[in-house]
C-alpha cells in the first residue's frame, strides 16, 4: 500500500508541477499505458491487467540547472482475478550537483553502486569531488528489495556505504569501498570492495574487482581480466573469476563450509564491417571437488540492408548442473519510417539430470511498433510458449507511449 501511495505521489507531483504555469522548470518523461495478459505461474491462472508506467524528469528548476528530480514507477490493476492494484516505485530522488563545485547530493529512492556492494535505498548519497586526485562518496538509508509480491523491506533493513575513488584520470579508474547492511537480527553484511581499471599501450585494458567478506575473513569474489584490442573492431577478452557462496551473517547458512567456484573465460568480439559483427567465447567452470562444466558461445549481428537487423546467439553448456543447448534468434525490420516489425525465437534443449532426459523449451514472439507522432507510439507484442509446462501459452502486451 505504501508503494501505491508513493506512485500516487509521483503522479501527483507531475500534475502539480505541470499545472504551475508560473514555474519555469522543464518536465519531461514518458507515460506508458499498457494492457498485459500473461500466465501467472504460481496461480496457474491467466492474468489480465492494465498498467501505467511513469518515468519523470524535472530539470531547469534553478538558474544553473543544478537541481533535478527523477522518478520512475508503475501501477497495475488486475481485471480478471480480483488481485486489485499492484505498484512499485523504482526510484524517486532529487539530485543537486556541483555545490561549490565540490559536492553532489542525491536524496530519495535511488540505485547505488559501490565495488563493495549495491543497493536500492531510500536515503541519501553524497559525493565530495574536485578536492584532489581522490574523490569520496558516502551513502545510507533504508535497504529496499522486492520479493514476489512487492516490496519485501522490513523495519530494520538498512544499508550504508562509503567509497574513495580516483577522479579525473583518463586511463585509470580505482575505487576502494565499504558496504554494510542491517536486518532485524543485526549486521547482515559488511564487506570491503575494490575495483581497478587501467588502459595500457593504447590497445590493452586490464581490470579487476574484488570483495572481502569481513565476518568470514574471506575474499568472497575476485575478477581479474584483460582486454586486448589491436583495433576498436576486434577485442580479445580473457578473465578469471572466483567466488564463495556468501550469505547474510544473520542467516544460519553463513556458518556452513562451502566450496570455491572458479571460472575462466576467453572470448573474441569482432565487428567485421557495418553489416556483420561476430563473437565467440568459451568458459571453463570449476565447482570444486571434481565438478566442472564447459560453456561454448557464438553469436552474430547481421545488417544486410540498413532497414533489417538479424541477431543470432547460441550457447552450449555441458557438465555439472546439467546440459543446456540453445539460443535466441531475432529479426527487426524498419518497414517504413514510423513502422517497426520484429519477431524472434528462443530455443533450448536441456537435461537437468539423467532421470528427466532431454526436454525442450521454445518461445516464439512477434511484435510491431508504430510511431503515431513525434512523441507518441503504439506497440503490440505477443508470444507463444511451448515447454514442459504448456503445450501453448499465449502472452502479450499492448502499449501506448506518450513522451512529454
Amino acid at each position: 500500500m505504501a508503494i501505491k501511495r508513493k506512485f500516487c505521489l509521483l503522479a501527483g507531483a507531475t500534475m502539480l508541477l505541470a499545472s504551475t504555469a508560473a514555474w519555469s522548470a522543464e518536465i519531461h518523461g514518458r507515460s506508458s499505458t499498457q494492457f498485459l495478459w500473461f500466465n501467472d505461474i504460481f496461480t496457474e491462472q491467466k492474468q489480465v491487467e492494465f498498467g501505467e508506467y511513469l518515468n519523470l524528469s524535472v530539470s531547469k528548476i534553478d538558474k544553473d540547472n543544478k537541481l533535478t528530480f527523477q522518478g520512475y514507477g508503475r501501477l497495475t490493476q488486475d481485471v480478471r482475478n480480483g488481485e486489485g492494484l499492484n505498484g512499485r516505485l523504482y526510484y524517486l530522488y532529487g539530485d543537486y550537483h556541483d555545490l561549490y563545485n565540490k559536492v553532489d547530493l542525491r536524496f530519495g529512492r535511488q540505485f547505488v553502486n559501490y565495488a563493495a556492494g549495491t543497493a536500492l535505498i531510500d536515503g541519501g548519497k553524497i559525493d565530495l569531488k574536485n578536492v584532489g586526485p581522490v574523490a569520496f562518496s558516502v551513502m545510507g538509508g533504508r535497504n529496499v528489495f522486492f520479493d514476489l509480491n512487492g516490496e519485501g523491506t522490513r523495519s530494520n533493513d538498512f544499508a550504508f556505504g562509503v567509497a574513495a575513488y580516483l577522479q579525473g584520470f583518463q586511463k585509470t579508474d580505482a575505487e576502494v569501498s565499504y558496504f554494510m547492511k542491517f536486518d532485524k537480527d543485526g549486521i547482515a553484511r559488511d564487506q570491503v570492495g575494490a575495483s581497478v581499471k587501467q588502459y595500457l599501450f593504447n590497445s590493452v585494458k586490464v581490470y579487476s574487482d574484488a570483495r572481502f567478506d569481513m565476518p568470514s575473513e574471506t575474499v568472497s569474489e575476485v575478477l581479474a581480466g584483460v582486454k586486448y584490442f589491436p583495433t576498436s573492431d576486434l577485442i580479445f577478452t580473457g578473465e578469471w573469476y572466483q567466488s564463495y557462496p556468501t550469505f547474510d551473517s544473520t542467516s544460519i547458512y553463513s556458518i556452513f563450509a562451502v566450496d570455491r567456484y572458479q571460472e575462466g573465460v576467453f572470448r573474441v568480439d569482432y565487428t567485421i564491417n557495418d553489416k556483420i559483427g561476430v563473437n565467440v567465447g568459451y568458459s571453463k567452470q570449476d565447482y570444486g571437488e571434481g565438478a566442472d562444466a564447459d560453456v561454448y558461445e557464438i553469436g552474430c549481428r547481421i545488417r544486410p540492408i540498413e532497414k533489417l537487423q538479424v541477431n543470432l546467439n547460441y550457447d552450449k553448456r555441458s557438465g555439472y548442473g546439467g546440459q543446456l543447448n540453445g539460443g535466441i534468434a531475432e529479426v527487426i525490420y524498419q518497414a517504413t519510417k514510423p513502422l517497426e516489425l520484429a519477431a524472434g525465437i528462443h530455443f533450448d534443449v536441456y537435461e537437468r539430470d539423467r532421470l528427466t532426459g532431454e526436454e525442450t523449451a521454445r518461445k516464439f514472439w512477434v511484435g510491431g511498433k508504430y510511431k503515431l507522432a513525434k512523441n507518441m507510439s503504439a506497440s503490440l507484442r505477443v508470444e507463444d510458449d511451448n515447454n514442459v509446462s504448456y503445450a501453448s501459452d499465449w502472452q502479450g502486451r499492448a502499449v501506448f507511449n506518450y513522451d512529454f
Partner: protein
Amino acid sequence: MGCALVYLQQQSYAEKVAHKEYSDMEIKECNSCHKSEGIAPNHDSDFVRGHRVLASKAGNNCNQCHEQKWCLDCHQGGGTGDDLTKENFGRDYKPKSHRSDFITIHPIKAQDNPQSCYRCHDTKYCSDCHSRFPMGNMRIKSHLMLGPNGQKYSFALGEHATEARRNLQSCQACHPDGDVCIQCHSAKIGGTNPHPRGFKAGNFRDRSDGKVCQKCHLPGSF
C-alpha cells in the same frame, strides 16, 4: 615515490571526457573517438556479462548517458515497452539471460556464476517462490537417491554434503531457516560440525548478537 607523483600529475592533465553531450550518439559512432584514444569499446556484445566492472563502482559515469531506469529495468523491473525484443510479461522486463522457459532452466543457468542471481534478487525472492511448491516437488539431485516420492537423503550416502558445499544457495531457496540442516548439524544434539576450517565464530556471534549461534548451541556454550 617521485616517479609516481610525476605519473599521477601527467595523468591528471589527461582528464576523462564528459560523455553527456555524446549521449544521443549511436554506439557504433563512439568508435570514431575511442579508436584513436586507445580505449576499448565498452558496449560491445559482451556488455551484459561485462558491464558490472564498469558500473559497480563509485564515480562511474553511466549517468552521463543513462537514467537509472536503464539499469533498473533489468535489475529491479519496469519497462515501457519500447523495445520489442524485450519481454515484460508479469509486469517487469525480463533480461535476455532469462530466455525460453526460464522457470525450468534456471537451475542450470544459475550455475553459470552462482553470484549472478543475487545481483538482482534478494534471497527472499527465491524462497518465496520455492515455498509455493509442495515439499518434495523439486528435482534436487541429492534428494532423488531414495526415490522421487521420498525426497529424503541419507547422510550416509554423503552426496548431500558435497552438493551443499558447492551450491548452498539452492538449499536456502527451499529451507530458508535451515531447519532441515539443524536436524543433523546442531551441537545441541551432538551433530556433525558444519563449520569450515578456521571458522571465525566470534565474528558471526558479534554481528547477530549470538542469535545465529543459538540455533545450534546452548547459550553460553559458544
